């Protein structure tokens, strides 16, 4: 089944490439987990990238240079990612690679791109990808600890001192849990409960009952849908009045719809600015880019743009900027990406350097509160 889809996608890309092979083209490769468990990441990333490339080519390319895109589906499988990255490097001879969607897939192929000297802009959030810095590897999603720090800064400003953690037992949750615990110590907060739940769990009342008994000042839940929505419903069911914080992993309207607007009332979370662009101050540098991206995405796919698609947007933006400055070889593109200063993207404003291959800071997130089923900036 999945293989069939992969073959079909492969055929389509081959057809694409056949048509676009003309003088003055730059060939970019992309690896996304379009199917499989991480498809919620890969699908918007693929959609975004296809939309951007189509739009640019329709307008005659970047200063006349057309972009040729080759996307493969890793299915969230690192072995597959490794095979496909070699295909991109050796057969397709791409000058830069966007993706993969997950930290596992990215870590698996770092060795290959480093050896071949092809710039890779990962769309996965894991801190290991760019710390320590690797010469050819960049990433566009902000590190999880920035989101955690945002929550703790907000808590400190509200004089909340004790915190209960409820994290999902997958890669996202366990990395979040480690960073929350480490940061809590730094910020002088006490972790009074440290509970976990499974990604497919459907009832978290036992964990929340236990947490309720420890009387924390705040609860932080760290996961991606649907778990946090279940937690939000359970909190309401148990009549818990302690402030509930969610992670940036659920910063989409989908979460509010799943949890129910009544149940989600008052929940706080650090959101990427894409979710709240219409609430930002007009002076915010990202507002224009965010609005245009959301509008274009809605037009092309009839659904709201997601933060995940934004990761691919930013990666493509960096390559496009490099091409605009005349870079055509992998080495030139890499140098250009590293020299980006105050590049306004979807995930934030990027300032790269030889020691920072992510380039985002705390301003990538906004603390928001859910009020009547909508976001409101939390002050």
């Amino acid at each position, binding site marked *: *089944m*999945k293989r069939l889809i992969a073959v079909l996608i492969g055929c389509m890309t081959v057809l694409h490439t056949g048509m676009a092979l003309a003088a003055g083209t730059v060939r970019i490769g992309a690896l996304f987990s379009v*199917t499989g*468990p991480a*498809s*919620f990441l890969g*699908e918007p990333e693929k959609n975004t990238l296809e939309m951007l490339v189509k739009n640019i080519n329709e307008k005659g390319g970047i200063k006349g240079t057309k972009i040729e895109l080759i996307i493969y589906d890793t299915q969230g499988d690192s072995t597959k990612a490794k095979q496909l990255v070699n295909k991109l490097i050796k057969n397709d001879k791409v000058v830069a690679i966007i993706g993969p969607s997950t930290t596992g897939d990215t870590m698996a192929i770092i060795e290959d791109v480093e050896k071949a000297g092809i710039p890779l802009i990962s769309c996965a959030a894991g801190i290991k990808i760019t710390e320590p810095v690797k010469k050819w590897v960049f990433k566009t999603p902000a590190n999880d600890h920035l989101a955690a720090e945002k929550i703790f800064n907000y808590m400190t400003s509200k004089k909340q001192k004790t915190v209960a953690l409820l994290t999902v*037992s997958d890669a996202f949750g366990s990395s979040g849990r480690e960073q929350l615990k480490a940061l809590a110590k730094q910020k002088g907060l006490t972790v009074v409960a440290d*509970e*976990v*739940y*499974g990604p*497919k*769990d*459907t*009832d978290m*009342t*036992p*964990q929340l*009952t*236990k947490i*309720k*008994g420890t009387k924390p000042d705040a609860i932080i839940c760290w996961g991606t*849908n*649907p778990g946090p*929505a*279940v937690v939000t*419903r359970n909190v*309401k*069911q*148990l*009549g818990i009045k302690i402030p509930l914080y969610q992670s940036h992993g659920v910063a989409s309207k*989908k979460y509010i*719809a*799943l949890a*129910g607007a*009544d*149940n989600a009332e008052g929940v706080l979370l650090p959101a990427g600015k894409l979710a709240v662009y219409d609430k930002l101050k007009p002076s915010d540098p990202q507002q224009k880019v965010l609005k245009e991206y959301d509008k274009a995405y809605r037009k092309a796919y009839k659904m709201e743009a997601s933060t995940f698609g934004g990761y691919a947007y930013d990666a493509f933006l960096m390559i496009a900027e490099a091409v605009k400055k005349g870079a055509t070889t992998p080495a030139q593109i890499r140098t250009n990406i590293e020299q980006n200063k105050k590049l306004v993207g979807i995930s934030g404003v990027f300032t790269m350097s030889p020691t920072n291959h992510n380039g985002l800071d705390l301003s990538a997130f906004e603390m928001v509160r859910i009020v009547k089923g909508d976001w409101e900036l939390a002050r």
Partner: protein
Amino acid sequence: MQISDQLTQYLFSGFATGAIYALIGLGFAIIYNATGIINFAQGEFVMLGGMFTVSLITTAGLHPGVAVPCAIILTTVVGILFERLAIRPLKSATPLSLVIITIGGSILIRGIAMLVWDKDTHALPGFSGDEPIEIFGATLMPQHLWIFAVTIVVIGMSKLFFSYTISGKAMRACSYNSRAASLIGIDVRRMVLFSFIISSAMGSLAGIIIAPLTMTSYDVGIMIGIKGFCAAIIGGMSSGFGTVLGGLILGVLESMGAGLVSSGYKDAIAFVILLLILFIRPQGLFKKAETERV
């Protein structure tokens, strides 16, 4: 006071999830008893029930009262097709290869569901509102009461069916000895089809009544199917109270384990118990009572 309140909540949460496991476990047990195979596509029937209801309500705009029976019928049709296309054509297959076929079938159904619908999670509104009910210092959702009620009704009905109707008795006869059953004139293959009809209808019903609480997506069938399977194993694959007790025990142990020991070991506790039962009492905890009753 505080601790006792917590304990009642753990118990109630455990019963609530346990009832779900029991309902799904019953579907496993019914097919097993009629055919001797474990239908690992049972979880997909649960998923289909929830997903059909969601799409009938949201895209077709049907009233929930109409959408629920329609979803059950649609899932039953899938169950019939599955039996006709995947199980029946294999005339002399061993139970093991049939079990493997059901695993293949479940992957196929899941894949089609992913393509037909999407990869998102969907929520259904509660049947009777979302205001929590407080009992003895613990809280339950109105939907939990629905689950309890439906589970009790389903068990009662299946008990009546298997004890007092000709078809029910014939299905039991097939489970004890299908060759002997066919010699006295029972159409064994028809009974196999029957068992798929019943269990797919039951699975979809379970999927529908749990969807407002647990939400649904194309891949909910995997984990919930395994938990239902555990319940059925603990209950010794009986199509009666054994599986229900199995489900409740599993649910309570999970919630007590998460609350009193550590939530990190929640699933581990459930699976360790499953393994222990398979090692020590492979016939299930209550098998003795079962044989006596028959």
